[in-house]
């Protein structure tokens, strides 16, 4: 069980932001008033698209797997890491508890 902020007991949702798809991910305007623009790539970009509603990392791993065909064992590690990065960048909100 991961011990990161993106543990299975938390839910996540992207913060309202101006953003666009690009060939290798998404470009997101940080919703913190800094005017910072973040390039989100790889699995984090897939997660960004899925976080239009509150989801747990387990739900995300399942959805990312279905969308990309990636190995579930690998995703169990990659998804929480990517979610941690998105939360740390201020692009994604975290809330306690499952739905």
């Amino acid at each position, binding site marked *: 069980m991961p011990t990161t902020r993106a543990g299975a007991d938390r839910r996540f949702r992207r913060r309202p932001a101006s953003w*666009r798809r*690009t060939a*290798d991910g998404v470009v997101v305007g940080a919703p913190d008033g800094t005017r910072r623009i973040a390039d989100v790539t790889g699995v984090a970009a897939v997660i960004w698209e899925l976080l239009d509603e509150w989801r747990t990392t387990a739900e995300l791993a399942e959805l990312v797997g279905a969308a990309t065909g990636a190995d579930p064992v690998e995703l169990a590690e990659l998804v929480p890491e990517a979610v941690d990065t998105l939360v740390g960048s201020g692009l994604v909100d975290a809330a306690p508890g499952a739905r």
Partner: protein
Amino acid sequence: MSELDDLLAVVAAWALPGAPPWPDPEPMADVGWASLVAACRVHRLEGRLVAAAGPGGIPVAPGQREEAEAAHRAAMHLAVQLELELLEVADLLEGAGVEHRVLKGPANAHLDEVDPALRCFGDIDLLVRGDDFDRAAAALVAAGCQRRFVDPRPGFTGRFGKGSAFATPHGLEVDLHRTWVMGPFGLSIDLADLWETSAPFEIAGRRLLALDAENRFLHACFHTALGDREPRWSAMRDVAGIALRPDPPIDLGVVRDRAARWRAEAVLVRGLLETWARLGLELEHPLLPWARDRRPTGRERRALDTYLDPDLGYGARSLAAVGAIPRWSDRVDFVAALVAPREGYRQGRYRSGWARLRAGLAEALRWGRRSLRRSPVR
């Protein structure tokens, strides 16, 4: 059209029904490809190029798709920056009690595209009411924006002008519009029609209002027909994209009715015909038979000349605008403001007041002579 224009047309029309195919099954040489990517940057077509480049579309050599993707990524950075600016300006205007409508780029991106990333843009355009124009301009200036040109006399833009451009402290451009174009066609739009309806969309969870679909279509026609002597590819794509959207389709009766009441049918015709001809669209549209049959009236032809004739410009367009101002007292104010503007107006534009007046008169005479030579039934 040049060879590059032919390629830009294919890119601009990409994924539209009836759009022309890419002309060559082999990838372009790198030099040609670099020119195409550069031209797509200028014409804000980076999103279409990336959508088109690759299997089943434009054939690309190794590295070429990556070049297009890099250009698109830069365009998306700009689009997001501009939308952040838009949100700030929208807050500013609302704080000043100024209602507004988002025009062009962001509105088209969110309302008229399957993916906003397809529609690139380089500035923010907002419509405000004439009565609010000075208050809106003051709010932007108070927030550190620099107005590019001052009014010839106080209140002129709010009564007669197209609008004004502002440079923001972040190095971006915001254009405040009272109407869509300067001159006779801008003055004959019934501006109440632009405010009566609206279309909502969201950026970063914030609700904004744009024009309704019929007005977005008419605006794209104005931009195509009158914006530049060579119509802009992105504007033509907007015309075709909105005209051909299936669900829900635009109400062509409303479009025709508004164009007729605004005495702008010639603009609608030119916008449509230029778009279909230059994009090479093979699909027929219900408005095209009417557009092909309709001949501009003498008044329309004279007014169009002031936008399209390379020897005519601001002076001729201003003279033509006089006839589009309904009240005589307003016509007097309009002419007086342009003949004798306040100090500082001509700064950076003309050497002296006399030079400005002489240039304007010469243009007006040229326009008058050409109008007289034309047969009104040609």
